């Protein structure tokens, strides 16, 4: 038996596979197939201080080896999460990560204050949401934006803080460094890549929001590259995601520099894929005499 556990920012995960935010609800949806405790952890549906209605449908479009989504952060609000979902999550799951979004710094801080007083194990800041004060551009696309949200939230919580980066930037390492400098304990990447699909018959975008975020196997090489670049740029641990669907993908992501991985879109294709990835990683460790996953993190040998 190999030891699959990983430790990130002082938090121990029994295995390195975490359900990605927005793709696994609040852990309640797949329990007919297998218990939540099989996963190393879950990043819960992105939440805001107030409940949010989300964007009009259709909110999903298929693409080559991927999907676009434009959910628009529909959620019941941070209080609803703590009251209705968190007790069960704590009972049935391993590491519980609360994914937080907001339009203003005050929104972020207010939501994080509620979570700081709760039982969640970690907080993941989604800084890809539109910054309403700066005309709707995302907080995460400038170093100043990323730094100001991170530092404000850092002051509001002692919980381990993950900052989740958007790939829709020219230099992701600059944003990663800004988050690290303001006290992030960990970074996670990548969120979705902005995309668009058009129905050629109706000449209408398939998404009612016109544009949406691309995820799934199509984005995997982009995610690996960004994780690798960030690994070379910061000293805090990285949770890697974007298009992982097999154990080989997960190991590749870890070799690039990820200490753990999240999986999202692949679960839509095969709800059992996270378990297959966990089994596959275990097999790889056995076959290669790897005792701890820390032995492979960032161990790519670049030319």
């Amino acid at each position, binding site marked *: 038996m190999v030891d699959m556990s990983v430790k990130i920012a002082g938090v121990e995960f029994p295995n390195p596979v975490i359900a990605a935010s*927005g*793709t*696994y*609800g609040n852990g*309640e*949806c*797949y329990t*007919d*197939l297998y218990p939540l405790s099989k996963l190393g952890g879950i990043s819960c*549906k992105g939440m805001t201080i107030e409940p949010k*209605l*989300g964007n*009009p*449908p*259709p*909110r*999903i*479009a*298929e*693409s080559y*080896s*991927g*999907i676009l*989504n434009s*959910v628009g952060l*529909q959620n019941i609000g941070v209080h609803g999460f703590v009251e209705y979902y968190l007790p069960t999550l704590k009972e049935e799951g391993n590491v519980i990560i609360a994914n937080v979004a907001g339009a203003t710094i005050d929104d972020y801080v207010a939501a994080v204050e509620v979570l700081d007083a709760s039982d969640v194990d970690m907080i993941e800041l989604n800084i890809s949401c539109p910054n309403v004060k700066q005309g709707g551009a995302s907080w995460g696309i400038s170093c100043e934006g990323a730094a100001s949200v991170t530092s404000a939230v850092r002051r509001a919580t002692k919980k381990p803080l993950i900052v989740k980066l958007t790939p829709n930037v020219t230099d992701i390492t600059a944003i990663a460094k800004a988050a690290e400098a303001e006290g992030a304990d960990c970074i996670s990447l990548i969120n979705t890549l902005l995309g668009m699909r058009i129905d050629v018959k109706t000449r209408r975008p*398939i998404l009612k929001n016109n544009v949406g975020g691309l995820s*799934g*196997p199509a984005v995997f090489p982009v995610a690996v590259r960004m994780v690798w670049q960030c690994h070379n740029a910061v000293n805090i641990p990285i949770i890697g995601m974007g298009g992982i669907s097999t154990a080989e993908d997960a190991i590749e992501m870890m070799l690039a520099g990820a200490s753990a991985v999240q999986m999202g*879109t692949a*679960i*839509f*294709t*095969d*709800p*059992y894929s996270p378990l297959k990835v966990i089994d596959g990683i275990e097999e790889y460790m056995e076959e290669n005499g790897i005792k701890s996953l820390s032995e492979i993190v960032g161990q790519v040998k670049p030319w």
Partner: protein
Amino acid sequence: MSFFCGKYPIIEKRTLAKGIYSVVIDAPELADEAEAGQFANIGVQGFTLRRPISICQIDKEHGTLRFVFEVRGKGTYALAQLSEGDSLDVLGPLGRGFNIPEGKKIIVVGGGIGVPPLLEISRETSSMCTAILGFRDYTRIILNDEFEEFGTKTILCTDDGSVGVHGLVTAPLEEELKSGNYALVCACGPEPMIKAVIKTCEAHNVPCQVSLEQRMGCGVGACVVCSCMTVRNGREYYSRVCKDGPVFNAEEVRFNG
């Protein structure tokens, strides 16, 4: 109610009309759980997203489920290439089906590829059920003989009048509601048809349940992409077609929302 995910053998495949196929799978545990109006999210080799397809018939005794689907795009085209002996990648049964009152007369109204999920209701309620089925023209007619075999009075309509009543399903629906004492109308089909059926039912003060469609991701309630606008206690919010539906009480649904 629980669901499963796995590969189940196809034990029968038939062509019902051009591009419309009937597939029966051997899946005892699914048949055991399934209810009329539920659906399955069907995996297609080479595609990221599963395709939602309604359950058309449930045979708990023989442990089989039947689906009827039309080729609309690449995914359903790939599904149509499967044959007997192949296996079908099924996540299901999913969602909330029809809630049929026992021992009461009901009407099912179906349009085109919205007809299949109503067949199971006919099987269960037989002569207590009246079916009003609309199709574009005579080449698109499916399943009407099976409704009749189950003992359901079946009224056919075609848009071009090539068979049965010329025109929309609402005219015969109007007549049935006037003459009979019906406790419920169940509808599945294109949105304009559903809206018209709801209006007719409102006018006659007869409850109506509608089965809705939306593009889906997970199919199990996890991703909230499959939203439709609904109202409860005077408050508007997005429900999930996959989990809170696909069948909704008509008065809950807000179209164009």
